[in-house]
């Protein structure tokens, strides 16, 4: 048992040394050029903070506790996802690589931000098209795609992009599933994501989210929404492998069929306040 632990430690050690070497290579590159301003960063990608395995473990525990105490601390949920999701991210990345559209995404690295979206063009699209419905979702729920935190603690640049893509696709998932951003809608989306991605943070959110729902919503979750979300999560096409930026004109129903997602069994009303 102890030799097993020792080997585990050695592996962690090696991985960390590799990380330090990579990071110091980036730093060497930075120091040799003289024209860098904000593009110079301490890590493998902008915003990267290299961490030791001990720090990651402490972060996972601490952010878990903080997220449980105050579920509105989105940064803590994000940190929990990053520190616990290594294996699931590798799995996701491999699934993306095996899919032609996913592979394109990994090469081109599109980002969903207000600056990259053409809002006026999307508003002019017909009702029922994906772009128009997404815009309606953003307006009804008073959210913007720019509120997603940047990835900080993932020690591989491609996996960090996969994590970032997962975060940015979350809002699009709301549109695809027809779920608003109130607590019940978020829990339903979390169940779908847990079944799809296998990220421990999603699983944790899926298990602990219902604790904050009242009985009526719990009933709705367990009888209709929950099973629907889980089933669809399991059999749907990998949602990260879809190049959404090129599919704004596609009809929402068409996209749902393509991804093998059934429309929601219950229509939930969008709410402006954060209701439990």
């Amino acid at each position: 048992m102890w030799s097993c632990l020792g080997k585990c430690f050695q592996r962690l050690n090696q991985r960390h040394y590799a990380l330090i070497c990579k990071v110091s290579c980036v730093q060497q590159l930075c120091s040799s050029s003289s024209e860098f301003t904000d593009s110079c960063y301490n890590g493998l990608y902008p915003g990267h903070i290299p961490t030791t395995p001990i720090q990651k473990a402490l972060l996972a525990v601490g952010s878990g506790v903080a997220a449980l105490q105050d579920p509105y601390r989105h940064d803590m949920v994000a940190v929990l996802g990053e520190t616990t999701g290594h294996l699931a991210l590798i799995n996701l990345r491999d699934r993306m690589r095996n899919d032609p559209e996913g592979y394109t995404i990994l090469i081109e690295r599109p980002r969903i931000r207000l600056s990259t979206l053409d809002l006026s063009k999307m508003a002019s699209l017909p009702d029922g098209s994906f772009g128009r419905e997404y815009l309606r979702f953003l307006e009804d729920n008073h959210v913007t795609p720019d509120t997603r935190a940047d990835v900080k603690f993932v020690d591989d640049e491609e996996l960090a992009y996969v994590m970032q893509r997962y975060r940015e696709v979350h809002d699009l998932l709301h549109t695809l599933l027809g779920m608003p951003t109130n607590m019940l809608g978020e829990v339903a989306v979390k169940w779908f994501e847990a079944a799809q991605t296998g990220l421990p943070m999603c699983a944790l959110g899926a298990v602990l989210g219902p604790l904050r729902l009242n009985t009526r919503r719990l009933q709705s979750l367990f009888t209709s929404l929950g099973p629907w979300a889980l089933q669809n999560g399991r059999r749907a096409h990998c949602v990260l492998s879809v190049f959404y930026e090129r599919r704004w004109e596609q009809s929402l129903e068409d996209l749902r069929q393509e991804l093998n997602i059934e429309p929601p069994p219950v229509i939930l009303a969008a709410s402006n306040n954060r209701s439990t």
Partner: protein
Amino acid sequence: MAASMRLLVKRVIRLSHRNFNATAAGVSGRSGCCWGTASCRCFSDDRSTHFGFETVPEAEKAKRVYKVFENVAQKYDIMNDAMSLGIHRLWKDSLLHVMNPQPGAQLLDVAGGTGDIAFRFLEYVRSQQERQRRRSARSMQTPSWKDISNNYSTEEEERPQESKAVVCDINKEMLKVGKQKGDSMGISAGLSWVVGDAEELPFDDDQFDIYTIAFGIRNVTHIDQALQEALRVLKPGGRFLCLEFSKVTNPVLARLYDAYSFQMIPVLGEVIAGDWKSYQYLVESIRKFPDQEAFKHMIEDAGFYCVQYYSFTGGVVAIHSGFKL
């Protein structure tokens, strides 16, 4: 079984020690090219200083320190309690015991931010005053008429000057938090909050009896200038007191302290305050500060006499004291 357990523990400590060394070597090997356009093209201002383990131009350091404290101001007290497990309160109480202020003393607390030292000072002085009054009441149990009339005449002239505490800080956010704390504690008499730079204090010469700077002087760009200013604003006979993180002498404790600082504190910063980098700066700046003896020499060079230091918690913090004569 016990042997392999010991091996495991040694590996953990070595792992964290090596990581600390590796990150330190990696980061300090980098020159300060990246931050701000002023760095590469400004020829007149090419003196650089340290910002944690980074090297930055001197003009940049003050701005970056300002930003750090602006970000952490709201969670500063909670973080202090979490990081030091509440021990920082004992350190600050020790500072007051070393200071032993008497009623009537005028205190200037520089980099006082959230006001911990100033509140303790006022509390201490008030309890000293209570004790003095009680003592004089006890000694006056059976006064004669002559004593009573003497008392009435002297009371009018000898009203002691009220002790005042001035909290000076360069950062408005920290002062705001401190003022809110003071208001909620109901302490407002004898307390004032001033924005000012430790290297250039907005006070006249020979104003204060006691000058304190607690956990602030390592953030100052030119420590010698701050010491000169301290000498200037103190009255002759005034006392300079500095509470600051210092060098841990015991090697075992030093290793544990390093591991704790570099592994735990930035994590606490991220979880509680949502800010990793500020707390990374904090632990790095502690390593860059001179040790007890070196700082004692700096204080003597500035012109203070009878400079002494007291180490606490194995050298984690030290209180340096000097007099202006």
